[in-house]
């Protein structure tokens, strides 16, 4: 089997296994009306993490330093949020939902202002309003323009004992914000005397699939902690061992 075919098989098997793990984890946590928000928040974040991670793992052309970090940064934030919520699930899940509904109200107000001049989007505005109002009437929804946990991600990571994740997050930031320390390294032709702007040919960053798989594994760990399920990193280990074997063989 060629290297590409082996890599493809490894990726397909990994994604299939993550999906099985997801379905087992979700169905193994019996619906409890007293825990509605906790189950929705932890389950929704786990679903988001699995989606981002498996999409990135499947596309090895994005195992690089331009697009890869945009996915990884979003994944690290999901992990830190889950870790911090898992310390006090009921209270913090409610806070997470309230902040999100406030953001929805903010988007709705912007959309209403814009729609007054653009008739065709009125239907979309109504749908947006309904989405918010079935959860909490907009009159009773507060808009918080600060941070959802009332503290920055670094403090959350420290409190949840995942401070290393914040270090990773801060190193992924320049690619997301296009800061100069990222831009000059990738978008100037260092080989030419006048350093002309270039559209770069992405260089492989072999850490990307490992970090994506680690993000998924961590999300399962915090989900299972709250759902009181035993955690195993078998899917992660088998994928990363497979990558290692391929690296040695290639």
């Amino acid at each position, binding site marked *: 089997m060629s290297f590409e075919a082996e890599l493809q098989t490894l990726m397909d098997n990994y994604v299939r296994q993550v999906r099985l793990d997801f379905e087992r984890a*979700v169905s193994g946590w019996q619906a409890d009306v007293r825990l509605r928000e906790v189950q929705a928040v932890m389950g929704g974040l786990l679903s988001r993490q699995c989606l981002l991670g498996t*999409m990135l793992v499947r596309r090895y052309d994005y195992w690089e330093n331009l697009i890869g970090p*945009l996915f990884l940064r979003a994944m690290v934030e*999901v992990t830190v949020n889950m870790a911090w919520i898992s310390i006090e699930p009921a209270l913090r899940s409610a806070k997470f939902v309230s902040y*999100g509904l406030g953001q929805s109200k903010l988007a709705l107000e912007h959309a209403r202002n814009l729609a007054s001049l653009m008739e065709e989007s009125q239907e979309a505005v109504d749908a947006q309003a309904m989405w918010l109002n079935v959860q909490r009437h907009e009159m009773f929804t507060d808009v918080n323009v600060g941070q959802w946990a009332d503290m920055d991600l670094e403090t959350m990571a420290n409190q949840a004992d995942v401070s290393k994740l914040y270090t990773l997050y801060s190193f992924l930031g*320049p690619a997301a914000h296009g800061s100069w320390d990222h831009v000059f390294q990738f978008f100037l032709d260092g080989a030419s005397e006048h350093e002309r702007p270039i559209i770069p040919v992405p260089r492989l960053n072999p850490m990307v699939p490992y970090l994506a798989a680690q993000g998924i594994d961590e999300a399962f760990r915090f989900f299972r902690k709250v759902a009181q399920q035993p955690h195993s990193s078998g899917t992660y280990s088998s994928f990363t061992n497979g990558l290692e074997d391929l690296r040695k063989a290639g």
Partner: protein
Amino acid sequence: MQHEINFEDVKPQLERYENQLTQELSDLVNSWPSDLEIDPIPRVLGALVARHVTLASQVVADPFFWNPDVGPLVLRPLLESWLKIEWILKSPLKRTIGLAKADLNGAKNRVQELSETTRNSYARTDSKSLLEMLASEENLFASDGKPVMVDSWKMAKTLGGQAQVAYRRHHVRMSSCAHGAWNHIARYNLAINTNPLHRNNFIPVWRQPDTDLNFALIAADYCDRVFQAIRRDGRMSSSYSELIVKLEKLGIVQNLPSDEEEFGAASA
């Protein structure tokens, strides 16, 4: 408005657009307005525009990004990049130096912190070479200019017009996607349980993202705004106008809102 399409139907148009965009970047850099030729403006602005074009091309040419699950992860940096470039153009010399200095300071602090906290000798060596590279870059900005830090909302507010409309229209949703907020995951990662005994609770779902060409069109629009801002001619780039005309002929794009409608909305 959602544009569900078959990728193969539009692939030739998108590939042509991507090639034209690369050429337009090169043409633009070769014909900067004379007031943008003062050192270090062309270097900083040129690299920022190259990044902008790179990200826009990725979204336009790859249906992988045409969905609300991952599209905004690239569209948000694109929107912020448009705001940054247009904001720099209002005072190019001061702002190129100021932004570059602030970013380099931040990067140096980050790397130094890592090098102090890590026990791994490989990471320390790596940090050392990175610090040397940052110091050498910093020397290029050793003039009197002060570091400048401005957030995207302030930039949008200062710029007004189209930039402000785009920010108000898209930024909250894009940020909610990037930060995995409740208003994103409840829409795209959860479904309503139809069992009435469970009081219509949300249940996590595993689903494949839908495809919507609108994400590609937004990327192309953001890209065109930057070209317009630098050329200062208020005209669409030929690549973008040609793409829109072709998609209109295919019946895929209809009645895009005019600039006047959008501009009017900015002051609402």
